[in-house]
C-alpha cells in the first residue's frame, strides 16, 4: 500500500493481473489442442502440462471478484516462474545498451569494412 504523504491516507495500489483473464483461458485451450501437443513433442520430445494456465485463469477470475492477496500472489508466483524459465540459459553474447549507430545511416556511408 502506498501512503499519500500530503493527505496522510492510504492510496490504493493499482495492481492488475499481468494478463487479461481471457488470455489465460485462450492459452490454456491452445496448450491442450492437438496441434500444440504435437508440436511440443516434435520440438522437445514431451507433451506439455497445461494445468498451470487453467489455475492462473481461475485465480484471475477469483481476483476480479474478491481482490484477495492470495490470488494476486499466486498469479505473481506463476508468472515469475514463467519469466525465469524463459531466461534459463547462459547468453552467448553481450546485450547492447544502444542500437548500432550505423543502422539508420544512408547506404554507401557505412561500408567502412572496419568491423
Amino acid at each position: 500500500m502506498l501512503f499519500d504523504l500530503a493527505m496522510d491516507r492510504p492510496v490504493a495500489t493499482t495492481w492488475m493481473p499481468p494478463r487479461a483473464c481471457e488470455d489465460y483461458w485462450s492459452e490454456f485451450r491452445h496448450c491442450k489442442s492437438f496441434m500444440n501437443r504435437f508440436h511440443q513433442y516434435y520440438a522437445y520430445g514431451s507433451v506439455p502440462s497445461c494445468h498451470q494456465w487453467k489455475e492462473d485463469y481461475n485465480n484471475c477470475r477469483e481476483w476480479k471478484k474478491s481482490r484477495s492477496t492470495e490470488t494476486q500472489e499466486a498469479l505473481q508466483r506463476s508468472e515469475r516462474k514463467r519469466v525465469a524459465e524463459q531466461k534459463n540459459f547462459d547468453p552467448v553474447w553481450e546485450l547492447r545498451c544502444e542500437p548500432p549507430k550505423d543502422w539508420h545511416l544512408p547506404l554507401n556511408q557505412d561500408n567502412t569494412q572496419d568491423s
Partner: protein
Amino acid sequence: MNQKKTEEEYGYDLFPERNEGKQNTTSFKESIQTFNHKCKFMLQVAMETSPYAKLLLTAMKSSGCKVLKERHFSCEDCDGTVSGGFDAASSQIVLCQNNIHQQSHMNRVVAHELIHAFDHCRAHVDWFNNFRHLACSEIRAANLSGDCSFVSEVSRFNFGLKKHQQECVRGRALRSILAVRKITREEAERMVDSVFDSCFNDHAPFGRIPHGKKDAKFAHRDYTNRDHYYKNL
C-alpha cells in the same frame, strides 16, 4: 584487407550484385524486372500479413532499429540456391529474387533474416570474427522462423518426429555457416554444439518457439502487452 579474400571469407560471393554496387537499380532484362517486382510485392505482403514478421518489426522498432523497406531490404539475384542473407556491414537484408517464388517461402525468409537483424540490433554480435555468435544467430533463426516446422521438413522429405525440430535446427544452422564461412564441417559442428543449448532456448522476442501463426499471434499479443505484464509481476 584483400577484397577478393574478404568476399569469399564472409560469403559475399553468393550475392554478386552487392559487390558491383548495384542498389535497387532496374535491369534491362524483362525477366529480372519481373522477378524484382514480384520480390518487392511478396516482401510487402510478408511485412503486412505474416505474424512472425510483424512481431519482429515491432520488436526492432522498440529496440531502436526501425526497419524501412527501401533502406533495409534489397531484392537481388543470388548464386546457387541461397534464399537470403543479412549484411551487417550495410545493415541490409538481402532477398534472393531469383530463388524465392512462393509467398510462404518469402514469409519464412523474411522472418529468418529479421531474426539476424534483431540479434544485430540488440546484442554485440561479432558476425565476422566470432563463429559462436554466428552459430547462435543461425540456430535462433532456424528455430524461430518456421524453417524447421514439421510441414517444412516434410516438404524436404525429412521425416522425423520426436525432438526432430532440434535435429533440423542443428542441421540448418550448420549448412548456413558452411555456406558463408570457410571452415571445416567438424569445426562448424563444434561451434554449433558449443552454443546449441543456450541458443535453442533463447526465444526472444517471441517468448516461445512459434510453431505456426497462432503461436506467433499469441507471441505478438504478449509482446504488445509487455509493459503492463512486467509492471504487475
